[in-house]
């Protein structure tokens, strides 16, 4: 009997799962639970359009035009799920209420990691949600000196947005070359040079040993003995999956919810998005992926399988894709992470910062980087999905 479906997590994956369930004709009770008070909103614009002031925060809300009536959701916002009882098929919520389900889709996402042993104080910020973006944007109005801890994509996007507003920015990165574990050191160096050209003081190979200031931040102390004066410190050192509420549920938790290729964590329980580790046929592994399109694909996949049941389920197969906009450049990356045996620029050049690069592992094409060359990506996405060999990819005609 399939009468009630509960989705825990009201961000991109949760919303797309709800939409897919209704699209495919599910007309039973559909509950969407979210711990934030906001209706579902889109996160990528937070670090760019919202921080730069091009968008008001409410422009990030999904379904601005369509609204929610057609989805007929029991939407419970501002309330956290606190535990899951698999046998009773029941999710307990922080307000003492419950949500009973026939099928459950978990999309509780991830939260930012914080600097260990550093007490919170005014001006010590992070960027994950809408409220974070509003606080950071307000702080940016006071012409602060900004220090950003972590030169990952979020840190670098915040740095670019701060520079767009003319703020002095220092970025502190533990790696010798930012982004090198993802893009390789050649392109990590290129991104670093791009930020330096835009006036960012980028310090690499150093870590923050202390945050200075009593009730509000005054700066940071670094492992090389130097000190950066700052009025705002933004910490962007990665995220942790929100799985604590499931610790005693019996689900397998290991850096996320471990799922089979159907997206199932247990019978009738599915997971999707940043919190999930779904076995991915293309990948040959069960990676936890924090990308926008992955959340959409896994959510739709979970919704379809939740309706189809185990006998008619499909297995997940997807080539991971992400993008990052910094200054006037768009970095697009599709495919698998390291180890890479070889990286070749097949079009454009480092000097122009406009290029397409291919990544080899063994005799396979495993990834493609496109910098301001969106058409190339479409071509190589096809080749990657088809599992083309390295030689076939190299000899494919270039589209720029």
């Amino acid at each position: 009997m399939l009468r009630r479906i509960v989705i825990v997590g009201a961000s991109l994956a949760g919303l797309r799962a709800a939409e897919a369930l209704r699209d495919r004709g599910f007309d039973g009770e559909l509950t969407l639970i979210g711990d934030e008070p906001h209706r579902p909103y889109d996160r990528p614009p937070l670090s760019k359009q919202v921080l730069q002031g091009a968008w008001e925060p409410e422009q990030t809300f999904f379904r601005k035009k369509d609204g929610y009536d057609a989805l007929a959701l029991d939407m419970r916002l501002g309330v956290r799920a606190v535990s899951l009882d698999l046998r009773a098929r029941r999710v307990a919520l922080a307000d003492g209420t419950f949500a009973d389900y026939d099928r459950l889709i978990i999309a509780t996402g991830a939260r930012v990691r914080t600097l260990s042993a550093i007490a919170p104080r005014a001006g010590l910020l992070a960027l994950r949600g809408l409220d974070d973006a509003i606080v950071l944007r307000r702080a940016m109005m006071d012409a602060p000196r900004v220090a950003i801890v972590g030169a990952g994509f979020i840190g670098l996007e915040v740095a670019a947005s701060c520079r767009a507003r003319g703020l002095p920015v220092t970025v502190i990165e533990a790696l010798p070359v930012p982004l090198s574990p993802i893009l390789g050191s050649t392109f990590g160096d290129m991104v670093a040079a791009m930020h330096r050209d835009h006036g960012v003081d980028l310090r690499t190979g150093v870590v923050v040993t202390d945050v200075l200031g009593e009730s509000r931040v005054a700066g940071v102390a670094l492992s090389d003995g130097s000190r950066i004066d700052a009025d705002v410190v933004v910490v962007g050192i990665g995220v942790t999956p929100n799985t604590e509420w499931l610790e005693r549920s019996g689900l397998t938790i290991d850096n996320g919810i471990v799922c089979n290729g159907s997206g199932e964590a247990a019978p009738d329980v599915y997971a999707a998005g940043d919190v999930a580790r779904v076995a991915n046929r293309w990948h040959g592994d069960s990676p936890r992926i924090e990308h926008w399109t992955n959340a959409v694909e896994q959510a739709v996949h979970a919704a379809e399988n939740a309706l189809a049941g185990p006998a008619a389920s499909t297995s997940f197969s997807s080539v991971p894709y992400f993008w990052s906009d910094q200054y006037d450049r768009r970095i697009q990356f599709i495919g698998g992470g390291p180890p890479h045996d070889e990286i070749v620029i097949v079009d454009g050049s480092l000097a122009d910062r406009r290029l397409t690069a291919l990544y080899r592992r063994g005799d396979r094409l495993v990834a493609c980087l496109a910098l301001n060359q969106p058409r190339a990506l479409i071509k190589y996405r096809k080749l990657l999905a088809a599992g083309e060999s390295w030689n076939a990819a190299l000899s494919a005609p270039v589209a720029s």
Partner: protein
Amino acid sequence: MKVVVDFSICDLHGLCVEAAPEVFQIGDDGALHVLIETPPDGLRAKVDKAVRECPTGAISIEE
């Protein structure tokens, strides 16, 4: 169904081209083109996928 693209917010991610190549194409001019404005119902699932996966929400369907 009628496919409507808001070209002012299309950002050329190209996910629609992958989802529904019969309907969407990025041309030699580097711009997105809608090949069939009123696709047959048989393409519905593919167009739905393109709508859902568009990172800027530029695609919509009018019945």
